[in-house]
């Protein structure tokens, strides 16, 4: 399947990507909510 390094790298990429994406979504939604 892949050595520890490889697995760590995949994990890092997926999770940081996911978190950043969700944070961006959150920011965008907050802007939309601010509009009257």
């Amino acid at each position, binding site marked *: *399947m*892949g*050595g*520890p390094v490889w*697995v*760590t790298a995949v*994990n890092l990429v997926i*999770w*940081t990507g*996911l*978190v950043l994406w*969700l*944070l961006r*979504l*959150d920011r965008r*939604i907050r802007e*939309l*909510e601010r509009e009257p």
Partner: protein
Amino acid sequence: MAAVIWAAFHWAPLAAGFKGESSRILFFHVPMAWVSFVAFMTAGVQSARYLFGSRTPQDAQLDRSAAAAVEIGLVFATLATVTGAIWARIMWGSYWNWDPRQSGIVVVLLYYAAYEALRQAIADEEVRARLSAAYGVLGLVVSPFLYFVLPRLGFSLHPEPVINAQGKMEVEARMLTVLLASSSGFTVLFYWMHSLRCRLGAIAARRLEEEN
């Protein structure tokens, strides 16, 4: 932030895996399956509150909440099925065996895909909310059977069970810790996604109102 803490937990799977490299995938597979169950239970509870709570303006929000929970639950359930199939391939050589647990999650997928189909089929908002809520509450009864009873029963159906996936409990403490950490992380992820989805739905609804 909670999200960062949970992200940190996922480094742990790399440290504690005892079995072959391949079974590390369990640290994703099991929590995702569990979270999909949580998602569908949430949908059921929100549906029940919609149907049986007193009529207030927050009604529509409950309906949106239930629908959002089902959507996200479907995502997690699909991922759980896929990761399960990958693990099955590595451990036992084939992706699919109609192992009772695999069958259970497939039926769950069918059940909530039907939920989505039901919502598509009804145009009137209020009728749609009411009927899908009823179906969602029924899911509270059906899901536990599919997730927990059917897999255990299945061994008497098949002449010789090909797989005993997750039939035994993880006894090794470190694995358990990681599993729990991973599960809580995924749960946090679910609630975060769910609240985002609900807010998005509320905005869309408000937009629709403003147009009319």
